[in-house]
């Protein structure tokens, strides 16, 4: 039961930390525009060369056409295959791609394990269900699981080696940078060892996911920690889930904000609109910058200061 309790706790931390990160972002004040082109939700013709609606005469009189399709067409290869790195830093991509794709496949495998557990729960547990869906799930879990583990091991070892051996990475790396990769590698290598030596069909993983959903009900006589490698894999995966949102590795999901709330945020401020209302709130904030020319005293608002001249020296 200790394994399950650890996993529950880590999932709880994951949810809490992720929710906090997202909450913090959505409650920040609206900022000035700082977009960078190409902005991928532009029309296909403009997105191709990085153009914007500002290329149109009297653009404020027109409806700004946006394309979700263009955005998805860009984002999917970016997320799945890390296209930007492929284009700009190919040598790093060769190891970063297997690393990230390995992690994605682990997430996909986790999803499949949950579906698998739900299928069992929907049948006559404890009798093992059969049928096409179950067979399909069994096959998919093996394929995604094994592929993810192999890629993840290659990627994390590669990243570790590159960070250690290349001065331009090593000189900027701290203990935590190595620790993060080692931590992920520990999961990949222990899970792969468990699969190779004791559980090639990932029966233990399926049983553990079932146990997680049912508060520890056994499946096929499995108990967590039967093999050392399997136990390490469970513990490291659980701890990783809790750890990732506490670190810069949260870029896995925070990338949404980096792109949609900054890099591609080209929303216009229209009179009487939501953005204008938010700006007016900001203009009432009272800065305390101390340089003479700012002339802030904690009582004057941004509006007061912006409409005044710089203080004489």
């Amino acid at each position, binding site marked *: 039961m200790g394994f399950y309790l650890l996993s529950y706790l880590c999932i709880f931390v994951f949810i809490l930390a992720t929710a906090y990160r997202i909450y913090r972002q959505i409650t920040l004040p609206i*900022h*000035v525009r700082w977009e960078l082109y190409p*902005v991928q939700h532009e029309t296909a013709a403009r997105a191709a060369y990085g153009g914007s609606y500002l290329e149109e005469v009297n653009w404020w009189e027109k409806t700004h056409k946006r394309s979700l399709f263009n955005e998805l067409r860009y984002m999917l290869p970016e997320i799945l295959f890390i296209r930007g790195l492929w284009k700009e830093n190919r040598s790093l991509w060769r190891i970063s791609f297997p690393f990230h794709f390995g992690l994605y496949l682990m997430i996909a495998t986790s999803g499949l394990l949950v579906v698998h557990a739900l299928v069992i729960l929907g049948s006559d547990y404890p009798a093992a269900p059969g049928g096409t869906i179950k067979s399909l799930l069994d096959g998919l879990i093996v394929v995604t699981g094994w592929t993810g583990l192999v890629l993840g091991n290659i990627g994390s070892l590669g990243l570790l080696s590159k960070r250690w051996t290349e001065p331009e990475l090593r000189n900027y790396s701290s*203990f935590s940078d190595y620790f993060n990769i080692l931590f992920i590698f520990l999961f990949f290598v222990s899970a792969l060892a468990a699969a190779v030596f004791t559980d090639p069909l990932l029966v233990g993983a399926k049983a553990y996911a079932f146990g997680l959903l049912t508060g520890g009900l056994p499946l096929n006589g499995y108990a967590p920690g039967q093999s050392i490698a399997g136990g390490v894999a469970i513990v490291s995966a659980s701890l990783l889930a809790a750890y990732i949102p506490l670190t810069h590795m949260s870029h896995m999901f925070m990338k949404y904000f980096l792109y949609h709330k900054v*890099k591609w945020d080209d929303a216009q401020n229209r009179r009487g609109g939501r953005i204008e209302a938010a700006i007016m709130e900001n203009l009432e904030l009272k800065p305390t910058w101390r340089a003479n020319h700012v002339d802030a005293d904690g009582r004057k608002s941004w509006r007061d200061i912006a409409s005044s001249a710089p203080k004489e020296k």
Partner: protein
Amino acid sequence: MKPSNLSKPSDCLCHIEPGELSPLPAPYEDFNQVTIPPLNPEKVKHLETSLDDTIAIGIPKPANKEEEEALVLRFLSGLKKLFEKENNWTFLQPLMLSMEHCAKCQTCSNACPVYEMSGRKDIYRPMFRAEVLRRIYKKYLKPGGKITAKLTGDIDLNWTTIARLAELSYRCTLCRRCATVCPIGVDNGLITHEIRKLFSQEMGIAPKELHDKGTVQHLRVGSSTGMNPLAAKDSVEFIQEEMEEITGYKVEIPWDVEGADILLIHNAGEMLAWPENVGAFATIFQAAGLSWTLSSEAVGYDAVNYGLWYDDVQFSRVAVRHADIARRLKVKKIVMGECGHAHKALTVIADRLLTGDLNLPRESAMVTLEEIVRSGKLQFDPLRNDFPVTLHDPCNMVRSMGIVEPQRRILRKIAPGFREMTPHGVENYCCGGGSGFAIMSGYNFAQWRNLVGSRKKFLQILNAFEGEPREAPKYVCAPCSNCKGAIRDIINYYHAEERSRLYYGGLVELIVNAMVDMKKPMIRFGDEPSWRS
């Protein structure tokens, strides 16, 4: 070189030896052994000079230990304010996101022309100064930071660290090429911008060209050039006379026309350094029959907003003045002349500052000009521009605003010898004059700019004209005053007019040069007219 080295004592943290800069091709090999001339020890003996071979700000050394400690505390107080919404609502979210998610993969370094051209000196990596700020922030402002710094990256904070960091924030042109290539979306250029703000808004430290002679003079006198309204009107009167002399076309430049469709705002530097640009705009607008005006009110005849580069407060003051002048003139829209940073400042950044009737429509001159050229109101003879032309993309106009094609569509129509640089558009390289560098020339900073900052652009220009005969005049079209200034300086520094017959100018000059109504050419290559009547 590690980020922690920034706080370690040394006379010069980074020195560029002869031969270390990226090589230039023939006939410029003689510059390959040239390096930045040493600072005059007498002139800088009271200044902090220990970062590299140049200085941009010229920060006085503290008189004693107490002063040093007070400055360190003031720096920390400013750093804290960068993360408070009351003080930094303008950039809080972008800053937090970029501070927290860098994976230190160095992809940004390969995109940075300063880093590449310097011979890949570590301190010029986009993430070097960002990483310094991250470490200071985590160690000195986060709870338990002094303990966790051993695990997440340590750095000592002392006066040397701070003085070098201030200088280092002026070794980046804020072109944001690094941010476009970051796979995560981190913007280390933005962090440089925020470092500059911290020093200016909290400590009153900024290059005099940007602050005292820049925004302060702009707001007090009327223009960062020092021209008051009377001088501006005198200059424009002179331009009117000159234009008739140059092209044989009489032009009247309107002032303060209430209710005009367009308020055109130039970078006032054009009136002094490139008056023909102001004249060419007037010629085109008049010939096209537009309703337009200039403003003679202080600040209203100078589109620049240097605050964009270093100080949100000064930025806001200038932007509000621009908008208020347009509001009182009751114009339908503001058109920004050929000035890249002014484009971005008033059109994009100020969009989340101006409210109510200050939020007037703003448009790029590239767009207005394209509309005129395509309208058929003007007749062109493209053969008058029958010489090699390449286009420089101002970062602020292109990468930061997405105004990419209008200027190209114009050039394709009026300049048969137009060819692109490689790369171009949103992937362009900065001219080296970005973020104020074009107007900063104290001590030996201009040499650093010409040798390091603008070197990539110089190589790009040479490549664009590869295969053209040396004796053929070549035109670099740079529709931005600061970019023009930087390109002018590299042409002069490398003797490129003599060696490659390189000339430069704006877009409007090319348009007027091709107008059939002109009796004489607008563009001359030295003494040689670009076409004969």
